[in-house]
C-alpha cells in the first residue's frame, strides 16, 4: 500500500457506517447538506439507495434501444444485400425478399446488439474498466466488497471543507472516518 507522503493530494473523505440502514440515512444527510460529488459503497445494491442518493434515472435504456434498432435494421439490410442484391438464388421458388423466413435472424441480431449495448453501455456509464482508483489506497476499503458500507465525499465538490465533512459524518453516526489521498 502506498503511504501518505507519496500521495499528497486529497481525494476525499471516506466514512464507514455499520449497516445498510445507517448508510441510507447518512446518504440522505449528505444530499441534504448539498454535496453532489459523493458516492456510497456497498457489497450489494441496497433497496432505496437511489432515492437516498437522489440519483437521476439511468440512461442505459436509451443506449440499449439504439443498439436494438441498429441490430434490427442491420440484420435486414445484411440479408437484403446478400439475398436480393449481391447474389440472389432461387430457392424452391421462394421470393428473394422472404420476410417470414428472415424473422429468426432479425430477432437474434436485435437481441445480440441490445445485449452488447446493455453490457458495454453499463460499463461505459460506470467509467469501467478503471483499475486504479484512489479508494484502493485505503486498506479498510477492501471491506466494501465484503461487509462494509461507506460514503465518500470527494474533495472536488464545490462545498468541500474537511472539518465540515468530518462533522457531518460524525453526526450521521460513522464508525470510522479517514482521508483518501490520490
Amino acid at each position, binding site marked *: 500500500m502506498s503511504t501518505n507522503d507519496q500521495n499528497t493530494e486529497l481525494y476525499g473523505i471516506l466514512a464507514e457506517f455499520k449497516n445498510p440502514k445507517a448508510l441510507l440515512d447518512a446518504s440522505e444527510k449528505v444530499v441534504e447538506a448539498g454535496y453532489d460529488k459523493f458516492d456510497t459503497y456497498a457489497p450489494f445494491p441496497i433497496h432505496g439507495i437511489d432515492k437516498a442518493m437522489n440519483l437521476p434515472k439511468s440512461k442505459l435504456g436509451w443506449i440499449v434501444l439504439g443498439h436494438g434498432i441498429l441490430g434490427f435494421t442491420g440484420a435486414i439490410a445484411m440479408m437484403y444485400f446478400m439475398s436480393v442484391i449481391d447474389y440472389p438464388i432461387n430457392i424452391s421458388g421462394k421470393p428473394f425478399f422472404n420476410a417470414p423466413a428472415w424473422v429468426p435472424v432479425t430477432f437474434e441480431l436485435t437481441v445480440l446488439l441490445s445485449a452488447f449495448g446493455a453490457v458495454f453501455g453499463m460499463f461505459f456509464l*460506470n467509467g469501467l474498466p478503471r483499475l486504479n482508483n484512489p479508494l484502493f489506497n485505503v486498506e479498510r476499503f477492501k471491506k466494501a466488497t465484503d461487509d462494509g458500507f461507506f460514503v465518500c465525499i470527494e474533495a472536488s465538490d464545490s462545498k468541500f471543507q474537511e472539518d465540515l465533512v468530518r462533522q457531518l459524518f460524525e453526526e450521521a453516526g460513522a464508525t470510522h472516518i479517514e482521508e483518501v489521498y490520490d
Partner: protein
Amino acid sequence: MSKYEYIPEPALVKGNHSFSSITKLVTDVNLRPTPKPWYAAMLLANAFLGVFLVAVAYLIWEGTGIWGLMNPVGWGWAIINFVWWVGIGHAGTLISAILFLFRQDWRTAINRFAEAMTIFAVICALMFPGIHVGRIWVIYWVFPIPNQMAMWPNFNSPLLWDVFAVSTYFTVSLLFWYVGLVPDLATLRDKAKDKVRKIAYGIAALGWTGSGRNWWNYEKAYMILAGLATPLVLSVHTIVSFDFAVSMIPGWHTTIFPPYFVAGAVFSGFAMVLTLMIICRKIYGMEDIMTDDHMEKMNIIILVTGSMVGFAYMMEFFIAWYSGVEYEKAIFMLRATGPYAWAYWIMMLCNVISPQVFWSKKLRRNVNFTFFISIVVNIGMWFERFVITVTSLANDYLPSSWDYFSPTIWDVLTYVGTFGIFFTLFLAFLRFLPMIAIAEIKAVMPQADPHNYDEETQEYHPHEVVVPKPQAETV
C-alpha cells in the same frame, strides 16, 4: 386455533450467517490451496476430454462414415447430442433471467453455477454442428462472411437460423454471466492474499468498487439483460425445433414442436442443475445456501415441465390420428410398437412417469431420491431426441427404403467425450470462480433490507409477521 395456519416463506439462507461469513464461505473455495480430490476429478475429466479429441481427430481424418449414419438415417447422434446439450443449457437462463423477472429470490443460490452450466453445455452442443459437417475446415461457410464461392448463406434455412440462434445465445449467456461475476470478482480481488490472484481477479473485476452510482446502472443492465435473455432462450429452442418442424418428414412436421421442445429443455436442464447441485453442495458444504427448500422448488418445476412434456406426447398422438394423414398416423404407431419401441417406452417411463412421483412432498425433499430422478430425467430426454430423430428417418414414406439404425463405437465415444469437455470446464469453474453469486445472495438476506432496521437506533430488527385472528363469520 384456526383451521388455517400461517406458514412463512422459508429463509433463503439457513444458519446464522452474517455478510462476512457468506463471503468467507464462498470465497474460501477459490482462495484455499487446491484440495487433492479436485486433481483426481480433473484428471478423470481430462481423460474423457482426451477421448473426445481422439474421436474427433479420427472423424476429421476419416469422415462422417465412421458414425452409424446410413441411408435413410442421415442424421444420427450428432443432432441428438446437440439438441440434448442445448436443452440442458436452457435451465441456466431460465433461472437467471425468467426467475429474476418473476422476482423469485431463491434463484440467487443457484443462478451462478446454473449459468456456468449453460455456457459449458452450449460449448458441448456447439461441438456437434462444428464436426458433423465432415469438412471442418470450411465450417465458416455457415457464417455470412465472404468465401471462395462468392455465395452467401441461405437465410431461408432453419439450419442457418440455428447458427444465429445458438451463437447469439452463447454470447448473451456469457455476457450475462460475466456481468453477474464482476462484483464477486471484486470480492475475490479484495480477499486474495497472493499476488497472482490479486492481479488476475483485479483485472477481471475491471476496478469494481461497489459504488452506489455504479450499482444503479448495474441493476438496470441486469434487468434489461434478463428481459432480453427471456425471449432469447424461448427463441433458441424454438429455432432448434424448426430444424425438424420445417422439414416434411412425418413426425417432425408439427406445430407443437416449439413449445414442446422448450418445455423439454427446461425439464432436462433443471434435472442437470439438480444433479450438479446435490453433489456440489455436499462436497463444498454449501447446504446453508443451497437448501432442501431450493431442491423442493426445483422438483416442482420438474414436475410441471415433465407433465407438459407428457401432455405434448399425447397431443402428438392425438393430432396424428385427427389429421387423418396416413404417414403421420403410421409413424406414431411405429414409434410405440415398431423397431424402436424400446426407446419409446424408455422415454415414456423416464419423462412422463418418473417426475410424477414429485406430487409427494416427502419425495420432493428426499435428497438421494431427487438425485436418482434427476439422472433418470436426463436419460429420458436423451431418448426423446433419439426417438424423434431416428424413428422418423428410419421409417418414412417409402417402406422399401426402411432400415434399422445402430450407432458405432465412434458415436458413443464422441458423446461420452463431451462429458470430458463439460466437466473439465465445470471443475475449473468451481476452483477459480465463486460458485454462488455472493453479492446477490447478500442482497436477499433479511439484514440487507433497510426496512428491517429500527428507524431510531438503526439496529437490526427482524421483520415480524403478525397473523390477524380469523374474523368471526358474519353471514
